[in-house]
């Protein structure tokens, strides 16, 4: 394997890496090498920089310091660092959700005229779920109530649980969270509490710290879920859609606008406005305007508008290197500041849009909900301007793209399931599990990371699981990886699925009349949309008469990178998912914390982390986890039926 | 040039090897009364314990001597040195002429006058042959008594215990390792020994070894009789000075040598356990019967014998022992007595939990001795300080606080650590390190 081949399995990315190498352009992989060797203490989580006495470090090999200056043991330090990561992730997800809620509210108040309530049915469904009575109310009134309820989850003063937790999980899970004192009542409060309890001289008890972290993780879950709900109301619940993925979607003939980041508030509008401004682009000599997405913004606009996905997180720079991107519009999260340096080598405009997410030297267009279209127009104009400066000699677009079928919100999935079981759509999936046709379900989530070979984890594990009859759903950059590699085109089922999964998907495709067949992996949305996968799991659990902790449903983040991945992982485990992470998080410095997250968590919550960097081994462990759940369910129940147990 | 060396252990062999390195052409003869090739005397106790085998005892490969053209005269004893004839007479009557002679005759175990010491099962330990005999006996013996609590006594006691015997140590003085350790460290050692199942009697002696032909029990000073089927007497070693005395060399406790390790008789040098050479810590000549001193004395003697005048910088008496898994190191002046050793001696000590103990002894504010127990990792840095005779007023405090490294005393020990400073901020300097 060559030096560059070792970095990615994505042919488009590889071509661009070679191009970059020839052109002397720097990428994250180059910078990664400059960071080697990574700090051993930091890598193990035993570096504490929380107070100004330190930094303190615990000698992982046991000969030097065993405690920090304040006396904090390895486990306190690791636990504090870990939960601060969770709080970081929670802050990111929930602030994203809050932003959507405030936009909705502004719209309802008449301050954001460029938006509309795209899915009143969803508003009504959410209202019912959270215990509001929508009868006789207008969509606006219902949406307002739902939005205010969501905002209350951020700021509730009473010791009552967050609505978006209790209303979306089983009663058994709710009771477990209450019993363990990890039920959040206030998202912001949960974050503040983590930051507080992990400051110098507060909590040193590793379990107490971790449970505090789990409370924040559940707050993160609430934030994700309400974000999904409100975004669906505002922009519409995704429906099946066809598009393309990978760098080949960049069209050298057109003005290419890349939307990158996470929150669709602006990118949705940009997509609309770009359609209106095609003529201006043509006037500038282009064949039109081509909006493409990177990262989760890509997922959002792909799911709802069919906008093609250019690439995922770690390859974001490679898109610019095609020389054909005229503007890259970024909002928040996962945006590499390195984009600026790279844009300097091209004509590409880097445009930041959020007041708290800027990059020195980038264009900044201050995005405001109340003048959304205007902001969008300004941005598209910048792109068209830039197009005029494009140097055709520098254009290098790899001709790699794959067809994608996306838009699998839970609502879409249930519609498909309903085609085989009208009365109880979820039964379609449950029957397949109980009859052993499919082994279980796996959620692919998370980022991409230089520590792993780009996309390799996602693809390898997906292939292995599909071969072993595991039903696959995906979100975030994991979904991006699967989409780019063609795992979301219908033909992939024949190529990769085992006999049971094949049979199941074909039957489902036939019954639902799904145009052209179903994909191998179901795209459920961006990383906040992991909530959709939870809804699916909860439905299955309820149907099977148990909790998520008992059903064959696993999660995997083969190339996790962001703090958000840490918080999602934490709540996935808390909700009961065996959760694989393919990058070792900084916990190995404490045997206690490692044991808790990888083993003992299972005894308490049913979920636990599988930390495994080898994708093949990881796939094996995930399959074992599914087998185990199926086995246990069978034999703790079979015994009852067969009265093998004397009373 | 004919070089003759009497004695085939550390001093003799290091001299022989150094001579060959310095002068590829000369004639070198080594006379040893043992019929064994060069082996490590210090390993005898490990041999008894069964921790090492025959092969590990040997310090040189079989072809080593031939490759260096060393004439080995093995299993023969030199009975006379004739300085006028410049020849050595062996016990078989033959003579070996020399131009330069090294007396590396070593020492001889002290044999106190205990009735019954001649019975079967009673041993001293100096040579490999002794070790073979003891280890043979240990295969069937069950109870051992070790007479003497010095280094040899303690090592053989530990070895016999490892070999599975019950071991009693009978020590005449008030503490074990009385030469090597001070009261406090000795108390730690004793506690460890007892915790590991050794019986230890101090201020006690064996007054008779009983049994018909073989040892059956020993009678102690206080009247007790204890069963024993193996007795090792380890009451110390006397320098072997007979040949030197007979040829008229000046002899004190050992063979007195000057700073070039020359005896008072022309062309005769002395090194190793038999020699009384300069001791840095005490500031006067002493017999320091140690492997490391013997090695370096042999090397210095070789230089002088080869005609390269080389000063012997002196040795520091020191030793290291592992007792029941806990290391002990002492060096230089360990437990000074004001009446004997004069004023100006200060002892500073510190005891911490576990087996941690440390002491430094200062003479005129310069460190001249130290004791370490439990944690010994940086003892060598303190030794370097003693050797450098450097005065650093913060040294005792830093050493006792365990808050020092080589870097702390780099300026007074040597500057080797300052290798390669960027931008010429400091001079690049290379320090030659002397032999010890």
């Amino acid at each position: 394997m060559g030096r560059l081949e070792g970095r990615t399995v994505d042919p488009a990315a590889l071509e661009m890496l070679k191009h970059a190498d020839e052109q002397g352009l720097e990428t994250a992989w180059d910078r990664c090498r400059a960071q080697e060797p990574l700090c051993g203490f930091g890598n193990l989580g035993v570096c504490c920089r929380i107070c100004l006495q330190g930094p303190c470090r615990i000698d992982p090999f046991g000969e030097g310091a065993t405690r920090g200056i304040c006396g904090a043991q390895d486990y306190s330090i690791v636990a504090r660092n870990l939960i601060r990561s969770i709080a970081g992730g929670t802050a990111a997800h929930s602030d994203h959700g809050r932003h959507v809620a405030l936009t909705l509210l502004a719209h309802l108040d008449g301050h954001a005229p460029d938006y509309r309530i795209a899915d009143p049915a969803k508003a009504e469904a959410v209202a019912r779920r959270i215990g509001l009575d929508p009868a006789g109310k207008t969509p606006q009134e219902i949406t307002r109530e739902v939005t205010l309820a969501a905002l209350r989850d951020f700021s509730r003063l009473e010791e009552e649980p967050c609505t978006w937790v209790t209303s979306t999980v089983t009663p058994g899970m709710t009771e477990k969270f209450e019993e363990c004192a990890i039920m959040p009542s206030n998202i912001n409060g949960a974050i503040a509490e983590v930051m507080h309890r992990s400051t110098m001289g507060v909590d040193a008890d590793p379990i107490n710290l971790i449970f505090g972290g789990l409370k924040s993780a559940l707050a993160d879950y609430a934030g994700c879920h309400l974000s999904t709900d409100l975004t669906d109301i505002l922009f519409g619940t995704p429906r099946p859609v066809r598009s393309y993925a990978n760098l080949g979607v960049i069209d050298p003939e057109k003005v290419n606008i890349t939307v990158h980041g996470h929150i669709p508030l602006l990118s949705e509008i940009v997509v609309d406005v770009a359609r209106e401004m095609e003529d201006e682009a043509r006037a500038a000599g282009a064949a039109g305007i081509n909006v493409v997405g990177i990262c989760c913004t890509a997922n959002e606009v792909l799911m709802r508008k069919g906008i093609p996905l250019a690439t995922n997180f770690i390859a974001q720079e490679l898109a610019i290197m095609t020389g054909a991107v005229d503007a890259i519009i970024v909002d928040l999260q996962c945006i590499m500041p390195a984009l600026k340096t790279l844009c300097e080598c091209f004509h590409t405009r880097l445009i930041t849009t959020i007041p708290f997410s800027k990059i020195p030297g980038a264009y900044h267009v201050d995005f405001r909900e109340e003048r959304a279209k205007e902001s969008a127009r300004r941005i598209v104009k910048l792109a068209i301007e830039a197009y005029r400066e494009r140097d055709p000699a520098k254009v290098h677009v790899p001709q790699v793209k794959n067809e994608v079928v996306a838009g699998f919100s839970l609502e879409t999935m249930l519609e498909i399931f309903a085609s085989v079981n009208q009365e109880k759509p979820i039964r379609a999936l449950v029957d397949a599990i109980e009859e052993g046709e499919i082994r279980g379900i796996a959620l692919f989530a998370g980022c991409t990371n230089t520590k792993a070979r780009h996309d390799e984890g996602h693809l390898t594990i997906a292939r292995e699981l599909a071969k072993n009859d595991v039903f696959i759903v995906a979100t975030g950059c994991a979904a991006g990886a699967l989409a780019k590699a063609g795992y979301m085109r219908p033909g992939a089922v024949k190529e990769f699925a085992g006999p049971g999964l094949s049979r199941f998907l074909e039957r489902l495709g036939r019954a639902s009349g799904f145009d052209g067949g179903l994909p191998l992996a179901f795209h459920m949305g961006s990383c906040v949309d992991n909530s959709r996968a939870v809804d699916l799991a909860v439905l299955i659990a309820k149907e099977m008469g148990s909790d998520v902790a008992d059903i064959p449903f696993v999660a995997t983040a083969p190339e996790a990178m962001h703090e958000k991945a840490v918080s999602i992982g934490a709540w996935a485990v808390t909700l009961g998912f065996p959760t694989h992470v393919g990058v070792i998080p900084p916990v190995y410095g404490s045997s206690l914390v490692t044991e808790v997250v990888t083993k003992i968590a299972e005894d308490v919550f049913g979920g636990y982390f599988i930390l495994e960097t080898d994708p093949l081994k990881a796939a094996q462990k995930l399959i074992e986890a599914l087998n185990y759940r199926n086995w246990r369910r069978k034999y703790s129940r079979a015994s009852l039926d067969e009265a093998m147990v004397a009373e | 040039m004919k070089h003759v060396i009497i004695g085939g252990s550390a001093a003799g062999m290091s001299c022989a090897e150094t001579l060959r390195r310095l002068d590829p052409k000369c004639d070198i003869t080594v006379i040893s009364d043992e019929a064994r090739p060069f082996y490590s005397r210090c390993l005898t106790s490990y041999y008894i314990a069964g921790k090492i085998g025959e092969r590990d005892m040997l310090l040189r490969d079989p072809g080593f001597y031939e490759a260096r053209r060393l004439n080995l005269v093995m299993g023969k004893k030199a009975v006379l040195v004739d300085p006028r004839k410049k020849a050595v007479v062996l016990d078989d009557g033959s003579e070996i002429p020399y131009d330069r002679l090294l007396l590396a005759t070593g020492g001889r175990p002290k044999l106190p006058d205990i009735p019954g010491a001649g019975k079967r099962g009673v041993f001293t330990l100096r040579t490999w042959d002794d070790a073979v005999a003891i280890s043979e006996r240990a295969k069937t013996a069950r109870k051992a008594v070790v007479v003497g609590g010095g280094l040899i006594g303690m090592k053989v006691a530990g070895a016999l215990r490892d070999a599975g015997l019950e071991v009693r140590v009978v020590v005449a003085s008030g503490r074990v390792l009385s030469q090597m350790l001070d009261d406090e460290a000795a108390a730690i050692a004793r506690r460890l020994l007892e915790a590991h199942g050794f019986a230890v009697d101090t201020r006690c002696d064996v007054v008779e070894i009983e049994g018909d032909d073989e040892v059956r029990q020993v009678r102690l000073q206080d009247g007790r009789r204890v069963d024993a089927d193996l007795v090792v007497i380890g009451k110390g070693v006397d320098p072997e000075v007979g040949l030197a005395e007979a040829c008229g060399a000046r002899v004190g406790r050992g063979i007195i040598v000057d700073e070039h390790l020359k005896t008072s008789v022309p062309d005769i040098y002395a090194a190793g356990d038999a020699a009384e050479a300069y001791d840095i810590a005490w500031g006067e000549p002493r017999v320091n019967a140690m492997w490391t001193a013997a090695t370096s004395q042999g090397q210095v003697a070789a230089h002088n014998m080869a005609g390269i005048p080389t000063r012997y910088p002196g040795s520091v008496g020191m030793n290291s022992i592992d007792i029941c898994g806990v290391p002990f190191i002492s060096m230089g002046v360990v437990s000074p007595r004001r009446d004997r050793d004069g004023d100006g001696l200060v002892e500073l000590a510190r005891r911490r939990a576990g087996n941690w103990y440390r002491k430094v002894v200062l003479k005129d504010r310069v460190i001249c001795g130290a004791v370490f127990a439990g944690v010994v990792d940086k003892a060598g840095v303190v030794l370097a300080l003693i050797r450098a005779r450097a005065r650093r007023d913060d040294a005792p405090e830093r050493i006792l606080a365990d808050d020092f490294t080589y870097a702390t005393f780099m300026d007074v020990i040597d500057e080797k650590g300052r290798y390669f400073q960027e931008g010429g901020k400091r001079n690049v300097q290379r320090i030659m390190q002397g032999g010890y």
Partner: protein
Amino acid sequence: MKEVFVRLARCVGCRQCEISCALVHSESRDIHQAVWERPLPRQRVRVTREGSEYYPLRCFHCEDAPCIGACISGAMHLDEDVGTVACDTARCVGCWMCVMVCPYGSVRIHEGQKVALKCDRCPDEDEPACVRGCPTRALLVKERALVV
């Protein structure tokens, strides 16, 4: 002959050399696995601080090494091919004479195995691990002749 040199002004006391050293002497050579190995891997370099100055202390591989002279078992020896002072741990009996005489405190006791523990200058590596691991290049490998 190559030697490891230290540029004291560049040492920031990050102790990455210690970690790298322990790692290269581990079974797995992977930080995430090494911390679970038993016995734990041991580092042969120690970063110490004297005043405001950090000092990564390791064996200087003396030409006329006291530890070799003091060794009673023949374990400590000069590896003439590469110019290092090496310890054949199979022969080491744990008498600690080498510890006693090293003026740099660079020979320690391997507590788990009861043998002498010192820098071997990574015989199987292109570059000693401490040097490779040093993020500020405070440790360097140079031809001794070029420096001295």
